[in-house]
């Protein structure tokens, strides 16, 4: 480990394809609004991300829309949207006024709706699109588009064909393998992948014998999901060559560096902003010191540098060490001498 580095020497820049960000910290969609710029510093953010915009105006779900759980928040807001006209005239200018790159999150209830909103925002000053594929597909009985890699490919390919801006794809974690959708999104031209959205869950009001949320199920976020998101970032980033943006339970600069090590090139902060609206600004301030703890003086030198016993893994596995048959001794597994002391390897080593 190197010595901690002076703040002034630390390079916080990061790149999402052609989009270079001054810092790797940005809000998660839906957890930020221009209102915040009036109470906390936002100039140090790498970008801002809008709430997901639909072409048509729509309301959100019935209340309750959120509830606190152990170390987390469960929400089912339902993505209320003012529609594209109001977004262009009233919402987008307020994001632009913040002075950092603006990522516009887009959604749709049908594949074509994603393409439509991309076209409608074609002329606007949008620095990148983030495709929110965690929307129910009304053409497929309300199943989440993101859960079907073919549909992810269809949506993203169509968006890609309609804009020359960077296209980020925000993947859902509610799948068996995030890798599949990640590879498909990359293959049809995604510039970067946001990993991940919230994890489906349920909260119960025992007195009322009802789900707490009006929509019954909701998405879990907050510190509770951080290890889950780290795992997904690690898996996805190893499977694709485009940058990954980590998202899930990040609330401090050290959290951010953990995600960078796991393979993220940037991070999004959501739930943490609710309790402490200046979380992201603080994170940027503390990032040089946190990078120093990892022996680094720039963001790019830690991205994906998580040191694991890769050689212990079966060739066809992207899981944790020992996940393959025989705890490291499975087909295709090779153990580097360095890792022979690891309990997960030992059992399989002659």
């Amino acid at each position, binding site marked *: 480990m190197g010595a901690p580095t002076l703040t002034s020497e630390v390079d916080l820049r990061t790149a999402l394809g052609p989009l270079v960000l001054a810092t790797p910290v940005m809000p998660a969609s839906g957890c930020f609004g221009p209102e915040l710029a009036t*109470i906390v510093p936002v100039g140090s953010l790498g970008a801002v991300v809008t*709430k997901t915009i639909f072409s048509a105006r*729509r309301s959100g779900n019935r209340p309750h829309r959120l509830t606190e759980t152990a170390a987390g928040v469960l929400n089912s807001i339902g993505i209320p949207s003012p529609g594209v006209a109001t977004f262009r005239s009233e919402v987008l200018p307020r994001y632009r006024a913040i002075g950092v790159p603006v990522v516009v999150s887009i959604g749709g209830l049908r594949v074509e709706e994603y393409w439509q909103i991309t076209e409608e925002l074609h002329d606007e000053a949008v620095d990148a699109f983030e495709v929110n594929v965690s929307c129910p597909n009304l053409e497929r009985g309300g199943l989440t588009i993101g859960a079907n890699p073919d549909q992810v490919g269809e949506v993203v390919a169509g968006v890609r064909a309609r804009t020359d801006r960077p296209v980020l794809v925000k993947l859902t974690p509610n799948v068996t393998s995030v890798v599949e959708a990640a590879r498909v999104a990359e293959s049809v031209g995604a510039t970067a992948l946001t990993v991940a959205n919230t994890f489906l869950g349920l909260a119960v009001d025992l007195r009322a014998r009802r789900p707490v949320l009006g929509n019954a199920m909701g998405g879990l976020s907050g510190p509770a999901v951080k290890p889950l998101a780290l795992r997904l970032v690690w898996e996805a980033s190893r499977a694709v060559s485009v940058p990954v943006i980590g998202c899930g339970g990040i609330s401090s600069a050290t959290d951010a560096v953990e995600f960078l090590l796991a393979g993220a090139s940037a991070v999004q902060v959501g739930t943490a902003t609710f309790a402490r609206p200046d979380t992201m600004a603080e994170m940027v301030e503390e990032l040089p010191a946190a990078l120093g703890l990892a022996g680094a003086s720039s963001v790019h030198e830690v991205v994906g540098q998580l040191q694991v016993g890769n050689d212990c893994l079966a060739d066809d596995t992207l899981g944790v060490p020992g996940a393959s048959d025989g705890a490291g001794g499975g087909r295709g597994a090779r153990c580097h001498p360095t890792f022979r002391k690891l309990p997960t390897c030992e059992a399989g080593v002659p």
Partner: protein
Amino acid sequence: MTAGGAPTVPDLPPDPTETGALPLDDGQASATWAGSGDAGPADGSLVMLDAPATGARPSLTRAAVVSNDHLGDRYWRMRLLAPDIARHTQPGQFVMLTVTPSGPSNWVLPRPMAVADRDEMQETIDVVYGAHGWGTRQMAAIGARDELTVVGPLGNGFRLEPTTRHLMVVGRGIGLCSLSLLAVAASQRGAAVSAVLSARHREANVLVPFFEAVPDSRVVTALDSDGSSDPQVLGPELRILLEETPAQQIATCGSRRLLRMCSALAEATGATLQVAVEAHMACGMGYCHGCSAWVQGVDQEGPLVCRDGPVFAWLPAGR
């Protein structure tokens, strides 16, 4: 959700409304109507108040704790040094409050709490809370000189109507915290104030001294312990009071039963009625859309409790 007198179950999951900052709950298993998903109970409906002409912008303050005192029963009062909020808060407005600003907070969500009192000279605000959830028990352990993160003032507060010469406030439990500054404002404007203070029992009615100190006020207490809080008992009593001294305006917070009672009183006496409601909140400013007051329609987002409320006008069904 549990502000009104539900049994304390320490190991229930945390509830962002456990502080009952803006409660609307009888302590029974009733959800607020923000939770019912409909436009509200059939005996009336919420109507958005006009936005105030001049609203002070909220600010983020690392507020030092001046004092944190046990008031009685399970209730505590925390006094915070927050000059801007003390200066600008209007009756019925609230703050979002988070413990342990340094390091990861134990609270994932901040707590909405009504500003129960403010002192411009001392630059302080008071919040009153019931220490019965894990979050609020943590709060009760906070000592003077600790710092909290406070965002406020937030929300659309009560309107004191120019024609109001007699104001009746009707509140229960922590809901009274939303009404206290309104009573003060009315009194300062020369209006008479009737304060109807409902609680489980006498020791839990911790804001009685506050309302008694409001000049030209008359305090009516209503308790579960002696049956006087029952709307069937309290309603007729207040009806007589209002016939003797008509009120132009009624304001309520903290109980659905009391709201229904106030709705009938307002309808019978011609008074206007405003109500402060609660909701599960995350951002407190509107950007997360977590606290929808009701669903307006498939293509239109309804008002948000944090931004468009927490105070709404109440229109009795018959009016």
